[in-house]
């Protein structure tokens, strides 16, 4: 009897200890989901329309674009870098695909090849970013800032006006529904699960954490540093390309102003969700929280009919508070 009693005691103690450890290790994630619940609770009190199934599904659907960008950005941030070029990659993919659709008379049979081509463009652009960064040892965010501007010039050279001529079946993909839930929301949920598995269970994903945590230790552990860095930028641009294709289906035109401001929002979403900007720390679940929080915020702003100009100011205030609350013991770097 005594033995079992003692064991039960040990278990109880270790269980509470385990809870304390869990809370300590996942503080930022718990914090952000608490924020989401608080915000949702407040919104449902002040607005009748907020808690309707239609609005909730709508929020999930609105979060898809930011989610795709944020997943890619998370991969790069975890290596200690930053990808500024994401929104321009999405834009260039959207414009190229729209131009080709228009050039070949909106042929529906071109949907699959052009989607593959779009992702391919993203992968190649990510590869260029990655090669420039790994081979010249330059600061990642400046290099991607430069490619941002190069791509912006290319975008404006392709078109300064929206491109029409996207085939109807492509547009219908966006509206497809199972019951009340759109198919794209379900697919996005599967993508989040797959990305979570990638970062927690698969070797390339773990390598990204290792390189971001300590490049020296990762090198000693025989992890290919350059290859891992390159893969992070390819993931980032690949997901941006996916976002570009999705935006094409949502707006129905190749928009030369698509995805405006998404670079910054994706960084904020990941950072608010607890991804360390020095790399190596944070969870994709936190990024999901950041994405949901930002989408929820803009939804609530719209329901409360706050002027768009004040929305920008409020976003700035939130970012500054988040930044000021940031305290790190890591060494200073640009």
């Amino acid at each position: 009897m005594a033995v079992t009693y003692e064991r039960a005691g040990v278990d109880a103690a270790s269980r509470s200890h385990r809870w304390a450890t869990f809370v300590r290790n996942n503080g930022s994630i718990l914090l952000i989901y608490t924020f989401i619940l608080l915000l949702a609770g407040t919104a449902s009190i002040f607005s009748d329309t907020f808690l309707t199934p239609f609005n909730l599904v709508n929020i999930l659907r609105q979060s898809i674009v930011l989610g795709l960008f944020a997943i890619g950005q998370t991969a790069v941030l975890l290596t200690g870098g930053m990808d500024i070029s994401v929104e321009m990659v999405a834009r260039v993919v959207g414009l190229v695909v729209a131009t080709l659709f228009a050039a070949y008379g909106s042929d529906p049979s071109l949907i699959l090849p052009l989607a593959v081509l779009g992702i391919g463009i993203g992968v190649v652009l990510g590869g260029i970013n990655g090669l420039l960064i790994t081979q010249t040892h330059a600061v990642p965010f400046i290099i991607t800032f430069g490619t941002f501007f190069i791509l912006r010039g290319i975008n404006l050279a392709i078109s300064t006006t929206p491109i029409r001529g996207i085939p109807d079946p492509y547009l219908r993909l966006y509206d497809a529904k199972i019951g009340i839930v759109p198919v794209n929301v379900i697919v996005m949920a599967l993508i989040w699960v797959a990305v979570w598995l990638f970062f927690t269970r698969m070797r390339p994903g773990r390598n990204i954490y290792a390189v971001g945590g300590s490049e020296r230790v990762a090198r000693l552990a025989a992890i290919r540093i350059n290859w891992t860095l390159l893969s992070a930028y390819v993931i980032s641009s690949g997901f941006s390309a996916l976002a570009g294709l999705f935006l094409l289906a949502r707006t129905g035109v190749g928009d030369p102003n698509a995805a405006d401001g998404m670079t910054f929002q994706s960084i904020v979403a990941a950072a608010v969700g607890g991804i360390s900007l020095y790399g190596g720390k944070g969870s994709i679940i936190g990024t999901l929280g950041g994405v949901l929080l930002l989408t929820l915020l803009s939804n609530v702003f719209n329901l409360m009919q706050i002027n768009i100009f004040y929305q920008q100011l409020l976003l700035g205030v939130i970012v500054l508070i988040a930044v000021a609350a940031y305290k790190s013991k890591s060494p200073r770097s640009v």
Partner: protein
Amino acid sequence: MKSISLKPKFLDQLSSFRPSPRFVHWVDLAGQWAAPIMIFIVLIVAAIFAPAFYNPSNLRTVGIQVAVLGIVTVGQTLVLLTRSIDMSVSAVLALGAVIVVQTEAGNSIVISLLQALAVAALIGLANGFLIAKRQVPPFVATFGMLVFVGGARLAYTKGQASGTVPELLRAISIEPLGPIPAALVVWLVVNVLVIFTLRYTRFGRWVYAVGGNPGAARYAGINVDWVLIVAHIVCSVLAILGGLLLSGYIGYVDLRLGADYNMNSIAAAVVGGTTFTGGRGNMFGTAAGVALLIMLLNLVVVLGLSIHWQYAMQGAVLVLATALQGFRQFLLSR
């Protein structure tokens, strides 16, 4: 231990290559002298392909643009020398223009000028405080400030371009003073002051010490935080000065005013030989970098190319310069 490499062959060769001292020396020289050499080449190319570049009116335009970007870039270089960065210059620059342009009819322009300078100093203080005291990564802190200041400006102006640019500013920006525009004289004065400070005062040496090795600077009894904060205040004040000259030159203030100055100031400083790792670079290089960048952007116009290629030009210059400086820094550190 021999590991099986899945990398393409050329990557292996690049990452394991041992540069000869002579090669390192040449890359170092190229990094230092890239801007002056390129200016020389561009001048010759312009003489052959675009003689219109040498029109007095075009040269005057180039002069004023060099002055505006030059003043902003002096501040940016100062901040880069301390191993920090300022992404908020474009927002500060536009805010200064808005404050001065919206002067009430009866009020003195001197008061609104003082207001603008005070606001700039406050923003710089906030940047420096976040970076030095809260150890926020400089990029993130100043990017947050960019969103905040931009939002504040939107909320203040409601997105409308209004007001008139005071005569005094018009005069300072475009009136010729002898053979050269008055704005260039302002730029020269700023340069003389800053170069004198960097060379012959204690503060100037501290700037280099803090950027070169913050830890050693701290042990040497330098107040590192204070140097950082002062550098950021000077940078913001110079940015607002540039904004005033720019609004005087253009004659109106709109939403897009100065949006490119973040990128251009960083690119010009880096082209001029300033590195992101701090402590390396000087104002002569910066002046050359500014002149080169403005000349290239002007050439796009003079050659009759689409204006969108300016973006691609900016991006290409930034990527090339960053890659060169990053590679130079990497070689020198081996």
